């Protein structure tokens, strides 16, 4: 039996709950991680992942395979995250201190870990659309066109978001370094 996302969605559209469970098992871990990186909060990320998968179920009969299922689902998750951030205040990124670093040298690793902590903190304080563009581009390795599709905007708008995000990060990191000195 064809277990591709599109084939499973065709079955979900006909009300096949087994196909829906399979689709959920495939995608919940990734969507949970994405929501957590955008929201910075594990509990909210769980709510978003659950809500996104429920929307997949309820809207499945209306889904048309014009784009990849993964892109559609990512778009749902990102929209839910943006809605949630509009309502709730920011919570500190929980994973900021747990970044894995492959550098072999211990001293350099500690220094890089500290730098990454600063970058994570500054990223967490970015406006939510800028942070989302950063997470999708750098974290998930998406092209600007894919990010534009998910954020329902143009490629040039995504480029602007990324440029502004980097400017904000640079400003924030400069002030952090000034504070440390």
């Amino acid at each position: 039996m064809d277990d591709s996302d599109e084939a499973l969605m065709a079955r979900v559209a006909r009300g096949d709950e087994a196909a829906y469970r399979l689709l959920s098992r495939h995608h919940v871990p990734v969507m949970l991680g994405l929501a957590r990186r955008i929201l910075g909060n594990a509990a909210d990320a769980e709510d978003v992942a659950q809500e996104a998968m429920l929307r997949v179920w309820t809207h499945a009969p209306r889904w048309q395979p014009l784009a990849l299922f993964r892109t559609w689902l990512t778009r749902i998750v990102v929209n839910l995250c943006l809605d949630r951030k509009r309502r709730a205040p920011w919570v500190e990124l929980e994973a900021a201190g747990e970044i894995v670093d492959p550098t072999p040298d211990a001293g350099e690793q500690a220094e890089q870990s500290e730098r990454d902590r600063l970058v994570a903190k500054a990223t967490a304080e970015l406006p939510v659309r800028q942070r989302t563009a950063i997470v999708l581009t750098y974290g998930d390795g998406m092209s600007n066109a894919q990010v534009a599709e998910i954020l329902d905007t143009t490629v040039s708008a995504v480029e602007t978001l990324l440029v502004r995000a980097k400017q904000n990060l640079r400003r924030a990191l400069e002030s952090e370094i000034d504070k440390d000195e």
Partner: protein
Amino acid sequence: MTDQPTSQPWPKFLDAALKRVTQAQPADQAAVNRVLTRLATPLPRQKVALWRMPAVLLDWQFAPAWPRVAALAACAVLGFYVGIAGLDRRFDQLDGRFAIASRADLGSIVFEPESLTGARP
């Protein structure tokens, strides 16, 4: 920028740091299980798109409903019989009735007198 936090050029440092900071972490299996458990509850009703209705009708499969199709066919046969014979005549008397009716009808058509002159054809 003079106070770079690393010896690398700033854009390169920032790109590398952003990749490390925003990369996907391994999934928290407990959280995944919690979400999947919550999704295991009875699912809500799906929203059916109106543009799909013709497709839904064309996709109808009668295979599981053959008894109903047979009942419908039986009703159609019964209706045909009642329509032809009426409720007061047995099926084996149908031939005679048709014969009488056809004779009467033919005669009235062929030998009907002219309405004004009374002449017969």
